């Protein structure tokens, strides 16, 4: 009787089993597969719900325990693949630490997933660290000809490579994310792109390619006629010595993208030589080149100038490249005119001058929306590889680094020298200005004052200040309300940091 009443009580209180199967499967699909499978032990109702989960999330780690443990784990994966319902696998995420121990199985697992019409495949395959393993895991050929694969994320190392078998591959692949883990042979990366990606719409390459030895040159020829978004976020820095005098190997990297429909282009870290054949289509470009300072090698100035020429028709531009503010470079490499530029986000590091502001304003006659971000933390050359490389890193997180650190602020002279001629966009079209990372220094107030005074069609100026103290904000507010304004309809809005 006791067990009966217990069952009855459970029947009353058990809510989760009452959910429809589709929802239970949906819940299990967020779990790592081993936990989803474990639910078959819960009660009769849960007996084989796990077999309907269309996603497989497999984490195997040969460092964890002895041989016995990882043999059992692989046995579990084999069994899951065997006894699962025949329905297709929607997403397969295989995270393996110690590919030398799971070598043959990895291939079998991937092939099985492909046979079950996998749509999204994510492969995180790593060798155990400090391992003298010299083998090479080549991703199976069936990946490249899989008709159902739409999303692929993989990691290329010197032990894991992916070489397409012929000139046309991935017939349905729309999203490709490649992470490079030093040291990757540049050749193997180039080979990955040796075929035509007929359906690809978004490509992300990130990580660190490491040192490019000797005469080695990386030619990335990306052929993707439908490509809409391209993100190049990898660096070329020897991981064992990021401060090496021979620095980054960007000068040896050439990215040649045949992407006539490219809409968005993001570059972080890497100032390679870019050729994009997307003159008309580009709408949004983001350049984040933190390590590139004034006084750098003129070679970089040349490259960045070439890059600006490539993206000259862009509508929205976000730039973090202090090198632009270098007056010598500005003189030698005049900025092209961005006729279509409607929105500009100019991000200035603590070490750079205000010079880039008039340069960009002069180059954008049709600018309507300006975001000016100031006081971005600047570290020594090449040291930014430890930036968190998240796909969706919210750059507003940089605010935390606006708090001054070791860099001695007094040494930096920030001077605002107003241009001789007021930029056209200020007079005719600039409607909204957004100032971020504002500290209330005298030069910042001068700049803001200049913009307010000459901005004849300004509607709104929003100032996001990093000052915490109420009084200083009140002072600022008063100072600002006394500044002359060129536009009668201009409002000023203040945003304080959240505590």
């Amino acid at each position: 009787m006791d067990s009966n009443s217990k069952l009855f009580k459970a029947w009353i209180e058990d809510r989760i089993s009452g959910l429809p199967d589709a929802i239970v499967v949906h819940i299990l699909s967020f779990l790592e597969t081993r936990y989803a499978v474990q639910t078959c032990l819960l009660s009769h109702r849960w007996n084989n719900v796990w077999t309907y989960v269309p996603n497989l999330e497999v984490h195997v780690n040969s460092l964890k325990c002895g041989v016995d443990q990882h043999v059992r784990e692989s046995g579990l994966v084999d069994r899951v693949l065997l006894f699962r319902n025949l329905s297709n696998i929607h997403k397969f995420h295989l995270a393996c630490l110690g590919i030398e121990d799971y070598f043959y199985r990895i291939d079998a697992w991937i092939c099985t997933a492909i046979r079950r019409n996998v749509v999204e495949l994510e492969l995180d395959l790593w060798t155990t660290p400090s391992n003298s393993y010299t083998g090479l895991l080549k991703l199976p050929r069936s990946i490249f000809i899989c008709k159902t694969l739409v999303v692929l994320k993989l990691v290329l190392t010197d032990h894991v490579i992916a070489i397409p078998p012929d000139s046309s591959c991935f017939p349905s692949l729309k999203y490709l994310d490649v992470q490079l883990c030093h040291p990757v042979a540049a050749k193997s990366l180039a080979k990955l792109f040796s075929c035509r990606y007929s359906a690809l719409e978004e490509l992300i390459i990130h990580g660190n390619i490491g040192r490019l030895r000797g005469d080695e040159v990386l030619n990335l020829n990306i052929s993707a006629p439908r490509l809409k978004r391209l993100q190049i976020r990898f660096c070329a820095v020897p991981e064992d010595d990021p401060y090496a005098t021979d620095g980054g190997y960007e000068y040896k990297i050439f990215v040649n993208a045949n992407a006539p429909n490219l809409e968005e282009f993001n570059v972080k870290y890497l100032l390679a030589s870019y050729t994009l054949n997307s003159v008309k289509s580009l709408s949004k470009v983001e350049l984040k080149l933190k390590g590139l300072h004034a006084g750098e090698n003129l070679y970089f100035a040349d490259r960045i100038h070439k890059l600006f020429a490539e993206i000259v028709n862009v509508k929205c531009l976000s730039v973090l490249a202090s090198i632009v503010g270098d007056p010598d470079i500005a003189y030698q490499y005049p900025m092209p005119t961005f006729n279509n530029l409607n929105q500009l986000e100019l991000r200035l590091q603590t070490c750079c001058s205000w010079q880039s502001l008039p340069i960009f304003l002069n180059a954008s006659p049709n600018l309507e929306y300006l975001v000016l971000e100031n006081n971005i933390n600047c570290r020594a050359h090449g040291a930014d590889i430890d930036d968190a490389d998240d796909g969706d890193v919210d750059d507003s997180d940089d605010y935390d680094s606006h708090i001054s650190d070791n860099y001695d602020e007094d040494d930096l002279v920030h001077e605002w020298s107003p241009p001789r001629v007021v930029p056209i966009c200020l007079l005719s079209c600039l409607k909204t200005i957004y100032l971020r990372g504002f500290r209330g220094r005298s030069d910042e107030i001068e700049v803001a004052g200049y913009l307010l005074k000459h901005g004849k069609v300004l509607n709104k100026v929003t100032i996001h200040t990093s000052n915490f103290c109420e009084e200083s904000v009140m002072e600022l507010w008063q100072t600002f309300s006394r500044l002359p304004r060129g536009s009668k309809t201009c409002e000023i809005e203040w945003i304080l940091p959240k505590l």
Partner: protein
Amino acid sequence: MSEGVMAVVKPEMKSYIWLQTADGSIQQVEEEVAMFCPMICREILQTGMGSSKNYAISLPQRVNPAVLGLILDYCRFHQVPGRSNKERKTFDEKFIRMDTKKLCELTSAADSLQLKPLVDLTSRALARIIEGKTPEEIRETFHLPDDLTEEEKLEPLRNITDDPRIRLLNRLYARKRKELKEREKLKNVEVEQECVDQRSVDDLLTFINGGNGDSKGIKTNKSKKKNRRRKDPTKDSSNNVNGNCNKESETLSSAFHDESRPSSSSNLQDCTIIDFDDGDVDDDLDPAMKEQLDREVEDFARRLNSDWPERMQEILSLGQERRLAPINMNGNGSARRYKSLDRR
């Protein structure tokens, strides 16, 4: 957020929608909040209901007034377009803090209203609760009835390690691993790669095939030199190797599905007979026998691969009748859709 400019509040004529829950109670909700739910939105647009108390929209049974309140709070926050991702995330994290019973009710209700973002949010929360717990703990948390017999509970655990095919496969892999390690040690010695690997695979195939007398392995495919490769293999040989590896894994996997073969029971017996002790490398075979076994194995593999889908159906229906309870699934049984920008 303090603003330097006073916001001017304009008196607006807000419109309301009337909703009726299963217990009969009616409440009114701001239109834009209610419209955030796809099901309500559809009702309004298609049938025109909800504009007055008499024509209140009846909500599905799974939505009781308490849960409806929660859902409306969610909608009220999220339907405001100007919010940043961070704000939404923070709200969600706070919102989801409730006991599991309520969470389940909320999931159920959100599903019936087709409010997918909320379904995802609650499902993830429930998944997080389940994750990492032992079955007993999960049963405790959710008050699940403990209605499996002790035997049934042990079954899956036992099967994972005791399934003879899995055990066999483990042994084969262990063997390969060991040989790999030995080869690594003897790096300087140029030994002709004898494909002891291949033999193991064929062992398996012949074993499952009905034990064609001699279960000693033979060489069929070309040697797998994968592990000794330098970093830049030539394209031809690498493709070859790759292709071989593929084929082998395919035959391996397909071989496993062969549950219904009549000889399988006798194979269990054979399993103990075949000597799988490590280091047992036996090479002296009659070449003619070798050839024959070669052909048989290839034939077998081909047959398996060609009518594999039908066999699978057959095998599964036989093998799983014990376990399979009818489950009603919608479509492909998944509530998840592919999102093209699924960021990590």
